[in-house]
């Protein structure tokens, strides 16, 4: 789960990382008053879970409260990468001497956290890192003994930081690491990390991603989830513990297992169709959960056909059939249903489906047959409309 900039900064500040003074505004008037209190010179920063905000007019510098109000009113009407902007961070400007980049991230191939730093932070850090990997300084962290000061000192030296800042840098980086560990973050990124004209470190922008598997033990962080850009369907899916992702096609997919669900989407693409969603019902799902899953897919206006691909191991196909039948009856849906069921209780399930008197149903033995049939159904729908 990704946190907003203001949430990330709030969290980092709790661990002792210096951040500029800032307040959240939901209206242009609020922005005016906040800017006024801060002497007029502020940054207005759109709080939206998208990258490259500066390039999308999502970060503006204001010199008067009136300007702050104006930029906020423009931003709140905009969206960035399709995401609406509901609030802005109004933040004091800082006199910057230098900008660095620093992050702690889970490194999958070594199975360790890695501290990454570059001497030049800012918007273009990723391009420059790809262009010249030697600029990127890394320190792998032993996850049992943690980040040691000698590692931070080495990085300070490689960054060519003034020697009188090394101890301060160590204190800062240790605070970032504590925040990373105690928040169960998979990424803590500060870009840029400023050195101010008064030789202070300050996190000018921050990004935290929290491990979804660990949210159960961080009620405070879980409560920070921004559901304002989620609709009812996505919230319903999450509450039912269904892994559901909306895509831009028209073939609805109901599958068990993440790998099989992706492979089903790939097969649809392979035969020239487009999936409407990714949906994994998980292992051993019972009829009720499958009913919810079916209803979620059928409730999407874009779905022209429902393709079910189940390989029953722990999951019993008869439970799947029962869930689908109930959902179709509840919604009185006429969306064509293409079913490919294999494995545990698949014969019983096909029998149940065939006797359920659903409007348009087709059972197939292989996924290829099922996908071709689904694409055929979609084309029929397109021709008739």
């Amino acid at each position, binding site marked *: 789960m990704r946190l907003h900039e203001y949430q990330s900064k709030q969290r980092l500040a709790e661990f002792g990382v210096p951040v500029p003074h800032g307040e959240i505004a939901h209206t242009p008037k609020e922005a005016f008053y906040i800017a006024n209190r801060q002497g007029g010179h502020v940054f207005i920063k759109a709080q939206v879970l998208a990258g490259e905000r500066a390039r999308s007019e999502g970060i503006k510098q204001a010199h008067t409260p009136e300007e702050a109000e104006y930029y906020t009113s423009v931003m709140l009407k905009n969206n960035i990468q399709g995401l609406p902007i509901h609030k802005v961070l109004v933040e004091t400007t800082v006199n910057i001497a230098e900008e660095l980049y620093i992050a702690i991230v889970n490194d999958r191939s070594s199975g360790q956290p890695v501290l990454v730093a570059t001497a030049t932070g800012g918007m273009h850090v990723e391009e420059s890192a790809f262009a010249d990997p030697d600029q990127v300084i890394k320190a792998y962290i032993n996850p049992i003994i943690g980040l040691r000061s000698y590692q931070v000192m080495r990085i300070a030296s490689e960054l060519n930081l003034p020697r009188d800042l090394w101890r301060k840098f160590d204190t800062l980086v240790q605070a970032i690491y504590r925040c990373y560990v105690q928040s169960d973050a998979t990424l803590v990124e500060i870009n840029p990390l400023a050195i101010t004209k008064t030789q202070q470190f300050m996190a000018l922008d921050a990004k935290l991603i929290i491990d979804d598997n660990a949210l159960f033990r961080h009620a405070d962080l879980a409560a920070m989830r921004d559901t304002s850009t989620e609709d009812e369907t996505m919230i319903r899916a999450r509450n039912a513990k269904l892994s559901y992702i909306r895509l831009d096609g028209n073939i609805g997919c109901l599958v068990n297992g993440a790998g099989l669900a992706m492979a089903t989407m790939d097969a649809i693409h392979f035969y020239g169709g487009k999936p409407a969603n990714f949906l*994994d019902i998980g292992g051993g799902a019972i009829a009720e959960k499958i009913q919810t899953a079916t209803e979620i897919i059928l409730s999407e206006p874009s779905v022209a056909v429902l393709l079910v691909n189940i390989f029953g191991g*722990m999951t019993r196909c008869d439970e799947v059939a029962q869930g689908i039948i109930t959902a179709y009856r509840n919604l009185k849906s006429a969306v064509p249903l293409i079913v490919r069921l294999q494995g545990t209780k698949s014969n019983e399930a096909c029998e149940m489906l065939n006797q359920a008197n659903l409007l348009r149903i087709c059972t197939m033995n292989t996924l290829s047959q099922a996908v071709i049939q689904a694409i055929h159904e979609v084309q029929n729908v397109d021709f008739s409309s």
Partner: protein
Amino acid sequence: MSILVHKLTRVLVQGITGREGRFHTGQMLEYNTNIVAGVTPGRGGEWVHGKPVFDNVESAIEATGADVSVIFVPPSYAVDAIYEAADAGIKLIICITEGIPVFEMMQVRYYLKQIGSRLIGSNCPGILVPGQCSIGIIPWQIVQKGKIGVVSKSGALCYDVVNALSAHGLGQSTIVGIGGDPILGTNFVDVLEMFENDADTDHVVLLGEIGGSEEIEAAAYIKHYMTKPVTAFIAGKSAPQGTRMGHAGAIIEGGRGTAQEKIEALSDAGVRVADHYEQIVDIIRESK
């Protein structure tokens, strides 16, 4: 021969009294797996499917000589169960549990490497050797004894492929589910190396997915060290960037870990990569 486990392997089930543990112990026993004991703290002295339950791993090993452990413990206790097994001297630990926090898995992996225990998983379906034993949750009804080694990140996709292999008379030597988490105890390369050295395996099927670089590392290993043919499929070619596709590990981040990059690396290593997974059987049959 097989890899990792065989019919004489003495299996301990941690979390045997739970709903999942109890059910799958029954399934594993039906396949004549040599389960010798179970462990649930506080439930020592009970019996499950005729097998004794102990309070801790150490006493279970003392009494039964268990040498491999399979874990069906909820995520908040699973890490403790792994440490307990490792500290008691178990050299192969198979963790079925899904949802363990990533940081703890990094610590576990680091610790186990130091003391020389191997972990399979977590969030994996386990290991099955057709005709010998099933340790985990792979449905044994679909397997057939043969010469194809199968290694997979995902469960249901693996079962579907194995079922199709069996239906076409292409039996399996060992099936290993390494799991779909970002931090894995055992990677593709580890298992490929075992298959390369296994006299009973003459062909390998690798089922990967988006996210991470395990398939890229596998491609490098295959290119330089492997003599046996490998057929592969990478799930998630059509997945959007930055979105976690179910498995915690299945996510394309910063443009890395795409299916395309993995398919290219594997193809370059001489692996035949299926465009969609039902082609795997055809590819293997053509090569015979």
